[in-house]
């Protein structure tokens, strides 16, 4: 990196290099800060919950009862995902089905046209 910078420096104004370095550092800083917050927040919430009613926590988080190992769920989710990505999205899936059920004849598309266009403008 340093070597790189030395090479670049002959071509580049140093303010640019500083902008790049500072910029990259700050992007890190902001996500590190977020990381730090969200490492702490659950501890605080958990601490609060432990002190509060046990039931509350249960209400919030029924997971333990229905817990499924992550791998299983991942597999399920993948199956779901592949299924969904085949249909592009739920909505377009629905529309595709409609469309198929409508193209039973050379005329069908016009029925659709009529239905749509009678609401026109």
């Amino acid at each position, binding site marked *: 990196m340093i070597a790189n910078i030395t090479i670049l420096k002959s071509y580049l104004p140093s303010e640019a290099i500083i902008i790049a370095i500072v910029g990259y550092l700050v992007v890190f800083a902001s996500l590190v800060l977020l990381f730090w917050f969200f490492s702490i927040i659950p501890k605080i919430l958990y601490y609060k919950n432990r002190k509060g009613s046990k039931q509350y926590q249960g209400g919030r988080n029924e997971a333990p009862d229905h817990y499924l190992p992550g791998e299983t769920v991942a597999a399920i989710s993948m199956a779901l995902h592949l299924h969904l990505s085949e249909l*592009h999205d739920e909505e377009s899936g629905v*529309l595709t089905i409609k469309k198929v059920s409508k193209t039973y004849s*050379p*005329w069908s*598309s*016009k029925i659709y046209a*009529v239905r749509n*266009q009678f*609401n026109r*403008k």
Partner: protein
Amino acid sequence: MKKFITVVSIILLLSIVRTVIFPSADRTLQASGDQEIEFVADDSGDDLLKTSINGLKQFFKFTGFRNATAGHIIMILVGILFIFLAIKYDYEPLLLIPIGAGIIMGNIPFFQEGGLNLQVGIYQEGSVMNYLYFGVMKGVYPPLIFLGIGAMTDFSSLISRPRLMLLGAAAQVGIFLTFLGALWLGFDLRESGAIGIIGGADGPTAIFLSSRIAEHLIGPIAIAAYSYMALVPVIQPPIMRLMTTKKERRIRMSPPRAVSQTEKILFPIVGLIVTTFISPSSLPLLGMLFFGNLLKESTRTKRLAETARTSMIDIVTILLGLTVGASTQADKFLTADSLIIFGLGALSFMVATAGGIVFAKVMNLFTPESRKLNPLIGAAGVSAVPDSARVVQNFGLKEDPTNHLLMHAMAPNVAGVIGSAVAAGILLSFLI
């Protein structure tokens, strides 16, 4: 009781605030000194009742009762008539109800003497209606409506029998003859072009063209276009009867062929390039129409097409209808010009209907018996989608209850939309 104490404490607190922050309370009087409230001239009279009456009088000056003219009342009645026709007879209610409400709103009389701008009227700078009218004046709403129309129109009837497109071209004769007629009646070239487009039987196209070349006529042109579009079931049948023989009206047409999805995808792309290369000024209208259709037919962007043909077109329709209606403010609208425009509009719808029918008959001269056209479908070439196609269907059924012309009429019907947008583009490039 607790609350009573709260009230008292708030009042006390506010009193303290008052004396601490504003040691001299005359800030009020000074500030109001330069405002134009003049009804306290006889403040010295010291009679509160009398001054109150003066206040009421002053107020009365601002009411609609005081500022109303016969024109306002006439226009409000017209607005109510539009709403009545739309609700009672279902004439294009999606347009006539917003326009009717807009006519009423645009003709509520308000005080505007001495150039006082209360920011109420659609032509007053800073009023809400004026901001919403911007999209009409700059021609922004019509292309957005075309986007939605494209996203809801199925062009397969056209694709399956492209020669029916020519009927959509033929009916545009109404545009050009009306253009000449308006000129002959004394309108200037640009005004005549905008008036001519009423014959295109397509509201957004008419608004778009007039916003570009005759802004001061947007109101009457738009109202005429939409009124006659709503009245198509009344205007067209007599012309159709006059121009066709019984035998012609009974011609049966063969069913169209199937259209593949590839053709449907190609149509908006080819259509966009071909029509706008010929008439680049039609780009805002035809570009959007075909873009919307591509969103629909691509099968990959269903959610965009869905939004374009529902919430997007609805929002624009509400705003367009309302502001076009409101633009009929009596003092700007009730002129001899508006009346002439209405007369010309009626004529142009009749001429356009006749033009489509005649051209269908001409085409039949060059067509083998088996592929003859029923000339009635030529009447659908005026556009006014889909009402004129419905009129053709119903008229055909009267002659022969088993002869369904609806599907055949849809082709010239949508071609008429393209045709009038091209015509608008040409007029624009000659007259801008």
